[in-house]
């Protein structure tokens, strides 16, 4: 093809939107009713009651900007949709097709923010980088994660990630105030982005508020002098302004304590019913394996009972069958030590601090992206009550750096494949089974090839560990038999009572196998991030 290529996401937007409209009748989760309830609450009640209302169990538990967003959407609800029960505050939503069409359409429309952010990313990248940026941008735009979570399961992540990417682009262009402001806005939309806040904090502090040079650390006085006070003040006031806009109305009515209690419910357990594929999945798996050994292998039981009082263990095992069956509730560990929220918090914080330290030395945009990814990794792997959906928070920043170094490709491929497969249990009904599997498969094929084609050769290719690539590839291919066998077991469980009871086992297979890949990918990225210098170069460097 001759002539200058115009890298536009238009066709991708049209194609994916048409597919998403066809998916309107697909299964939607209770999150759909959650958001419908929020539409009703924000529409029908005065602001001061938004965070107090509790007719439905799906209370408003997102930060204020999201509540304002729902209020805005509720202003556009047509009469026919309102008659359908869309705006009724009820215990359980009673709605039909018009409400589904309305809410699904708002997801598609709000996702335009993401497409605009990605198009901007393509437009501001240098000419010779454009093909690469296009691959990254389209991979995010077409992400199976967003399709599964937003357009079938039902959430508004697309818009959130759009704001995140706008803020990253501001950082790339050196507009740090804008970057900070956008990130604060994002936090006021969805507080899960606190996972990556440490990286933002350190990055903005280092590049915008500090002017560190060789002599900075000589005396306390010189250290004080290297702070750019005016910038610090500007940034602080911008961020404060955003938070004041978000929270002031609620402070005025004195409902801030209720709001905080809603945002941070500490009553939940370590893992979800379906274990998110992280460290705790492996940890719980270990516990289950040890229990089985204890019960069925004679030698082991005597060793274990040396450390644990066996009578209490047996009585606990007898009493608690709920968690082994995978019903909602706290996970109970029988043999391995119980994890407290504090331990999980300390582990997360430790790895996050580790991830942001290099930023202080090399505050480049790429290093920033790397530290965001690692912060998200740390929260995902060690956090308390992590949802499998949070993997998107790791995948999206990782996408931007994956093309910059060929050695990052395999950790990236492993992450996206394992991460997206781990979302499969979200859609557990039969009509969507092939949709999710085939869409993810075709996405993985397309972007496996495209990322390989456009990624840069590393300067230190000689140090590349080839056998790791092979292991990764085998792992990725292993996801196919995993998915297929679980699918077959699901189909057969119609017929066989035994398989029906083992539903939890199939979910465990997903979380354990995916956890292995995600942890492996985290290791791969950490290795290159901490021990290699390629991520330090700025984005214009070409190997």
């Amino acid at each position, binding site marked *: 093809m001759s002539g200058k290529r115009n890298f*536009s996401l238009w066709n991708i937007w049209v*194609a994916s939107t048409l597919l998403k409209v066809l998916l309107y009748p697909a299964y939607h989760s209770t999150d759909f009713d959650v958001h419908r309830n929020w539409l009703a609450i924000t529409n029908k009640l005065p602001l001061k009651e938004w965070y107090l209302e509790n007719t439905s169990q799906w209370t408003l538990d997102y930060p204020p900007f999201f509540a304002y967003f729902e209020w805005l959407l509720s202003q556009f609800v047509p009469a026919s949709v309102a008659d359908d029960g869309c705006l009724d505050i009820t215990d359980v939503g009673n709605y039909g097709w018009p409400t589904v069409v309305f809410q699904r359409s708002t997801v598609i429309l709000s996702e335009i923010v993401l497409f605009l952010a990605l198009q901007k990313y393509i437009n501001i990248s240098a000419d010779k980088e454009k093909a690469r940026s296009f691959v990254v941008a389209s991979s995010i735009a077409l992400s199976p994660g967003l399709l599964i979570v937003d357009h079938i399961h039902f959430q508004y992540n697309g818009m959130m990630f759009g704001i995140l990417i706008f803020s990253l682009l501001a950082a790339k262009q050196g507009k740090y105030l804008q970057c900070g402001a956008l990130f604060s806005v994002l936090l006021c939309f969805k507080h899960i982005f606190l996972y990556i806040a440490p990286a933002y904090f350190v990055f903005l502090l280092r590049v915008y508020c500090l002017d560190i040079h060789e002599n900075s650390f000589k005396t306390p006085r010189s250290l004080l002098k290297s702070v750019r006070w005016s910038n610090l003040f500007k940034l602080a006031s911008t961020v404060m302004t955003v938070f004041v806009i978000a929270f002031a109305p609620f402070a005025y009515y004195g409902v801030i304590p209720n709001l905080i209690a809603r945002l941070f419910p500490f009553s939940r357990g370590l893992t979800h019913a379906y274990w998110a594929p992280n460290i705790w999945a492996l940890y719980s798996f270990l516990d289950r394996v040890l229990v089985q050994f204890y019960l069925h292998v004679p030698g082991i039981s005597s060793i274990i009972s040396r450390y644990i009082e066996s009578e209490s263990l047996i009585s606990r095992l007898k009493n608690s069958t709920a968690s082994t069956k995978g019903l909602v509730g706290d996970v109970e560990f029988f043999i391995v030590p119980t994890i407290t929220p504090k331990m999980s918090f300390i582990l997360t914080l430790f790895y996050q601090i580790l991830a942001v330290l290099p930023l202080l030395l090399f505050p480049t945009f790429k290093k920033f992206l790397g530290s965001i990814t690692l912060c998200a990794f740390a929260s995902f792997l060690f956090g308390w009550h992590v949802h499998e959906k949070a993997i998107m928070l790791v995948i999206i920043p990782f996408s931007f750096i994956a093309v910059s170094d060929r050695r990052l490709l395999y950790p990236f491929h492993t992450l996206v494949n394992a991460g997206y497969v781990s979302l499969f249990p979200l859609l557990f009904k039969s009509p969507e*089974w092939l*949709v999710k599997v085939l869409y993810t498969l075709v996405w993985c094929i397309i972007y496996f090839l495209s990322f390989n084609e456009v990624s840069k050769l590393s300067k230190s290719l000689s140090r590349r560990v080839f056998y790791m690539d092979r292991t990764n590839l085998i792992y990725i291919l292993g996801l196919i038999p995993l998915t297929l066998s679980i699918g077959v077991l699901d189909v057969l469980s119609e017929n066989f009572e035994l398989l029906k009871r083992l539903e939890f086992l199939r979910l465990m297979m997903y979380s354990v196998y995916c956890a292995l890949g995600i942890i492996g990918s985290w290791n791969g990225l950490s290795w290159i991030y901490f021990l290699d210098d390629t991520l330090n170069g700025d984005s214009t460097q070409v190997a």
Partner: protein
Amino acid sequence: MPHRRTPSNNLLYAKVPGTSFENSPVFDFLSPFGPAPNQWVARYIIIIFAILIRLAVGLGSYSGFNTPPMFGDFEAQRHWMEITQHLSIDKWYFYDLQYWGLDYPPLTAFHSYFFGKLGSFINPAWFALDVSRGFESVDLKSYMRATAILSELLCFIPAVIWYCRWMGLNYFNQNAIEQTIIASAILFNPSLIIIDHGHFQYNSVMLGFALLSILNLLYDNFALSAIFFVLSISFKQMALYYSPIMFFYMLSLSCWPLKNFNLLRLATISIAVVLTFATLLLPFVLVDGMSQIGQILFRVFPFSRGLFEDKVANFWCTTNILVKYKQLFTDKTLTRISLVATLVAISPSCFIIFTHPKKVLLPWAFAACSWAFYLFSFQVHEKSVLVPLMPTTLLLVEKDLDIISMVCWISNIAFFSMWPLLKRDGLALEYFVLGVLSNWLIGNLNWISKWLLPSFLIPGPTLSKKVPKRETKTVVHTHWFWGSVTFVSYLGATVIQLVDWLYVPPAKYPDLWVILNTTLSFACFGLFWLWINYNLYILRDFKLKDA
């Protein structure tokens, strides 16, 4: 750079590389896979997306959903799976004929038997004898959808890919990626998708076997071709619309002119036909004797059902507005009249394919003949339009943009003609999305993108190049007559669609919108049939290899 071509009604440009879809979004998507090592990927990507779209359409409603006591085509197919696996073979064509008695040929029965057994293995309740009537569940629906997709994947999709490959290699000088683009244009034809995977039927099996049969004609494998054609007919009798062309083409190649009489070929073909039919009917005869064959024929060809039932865009139903045939003539006379009319209508295409048995004429002849059947024969359903549509969409391999615009036009009108049916089935959402998707993918809506988008968003590399033709002219033929016919019919279809959507028909004429729909569609189909026949006549002496 692709060459720009002046519009002309011939195949002079067939040897110039490229397709007619160089500025389409599907080209935009697949062009990154242009380099030779990746070309195979494009083919699988297109197949997976074709399946995905079918799955997504399948999430919607189906015919007869939740409408007891008779339900619809979905229940009919499910019912056949139920009876074939629980009853012995001699009862299949006799069992409780009032409730969706089996009225498709034996291969459909075997197909139902196979999927019924498989389904019963998963959940026996789906196909329990008698008690499962009207059974509806999410899982059953998923299973039935999966069987329709699997059947299409094994039959129709490979045939299309293979056909485009043969044509691209032998006639039109298209590389692998261009062949894939054309295949996707055929595979994303909305009518077949929505009938098979929305409304619910297995037409793709019948069409797939027919296309495999055509393919074997291209390869000169006459016996295989005959076998596939018999399989096609034995799956669904509608494939008989193709049979005159099949017959005259094979006859011409085996014994015309008489000095080239090829007894061996004629014998092979005849034996293949007889043996295939015999194999399919043997299980019935072995169990219960020859009387079974009579019953099968009686069930499969329902001459007692009248000239037409529903509103359909063919000659009889449309002119019935003016001439009340059913009051003027008896059913028997009507059968004869329609038979004569059909024979007259198919004779030009049969004659040309007999005197000029050329491979490049095959899709034209099949299209001409099957459109004639659709327009003039007995007991035509609105869904029967899929039969003439299949060879018509095969013409998308052509390079002449005027041909492409005609094919796209008639495929849109055919889709439009099924609107009353789809509306009844609750498939409005799927109808509109597929209508937009299929046209947009192959570039028929480029003029909107061009007009709507800021320059930096105009997709490249396709539209950003200075090629004025595809953006503006594909939607309509360049000749003033066909151009205005296309334009006026699109306008009319849009108006009818809007009126149908916004207003309830007057109480005196409850079918008014439907009649407007069928009348417009009939006019378009009739004109298109004339155009196809004219082209067949013009192209009869064309020697492609010399071009």
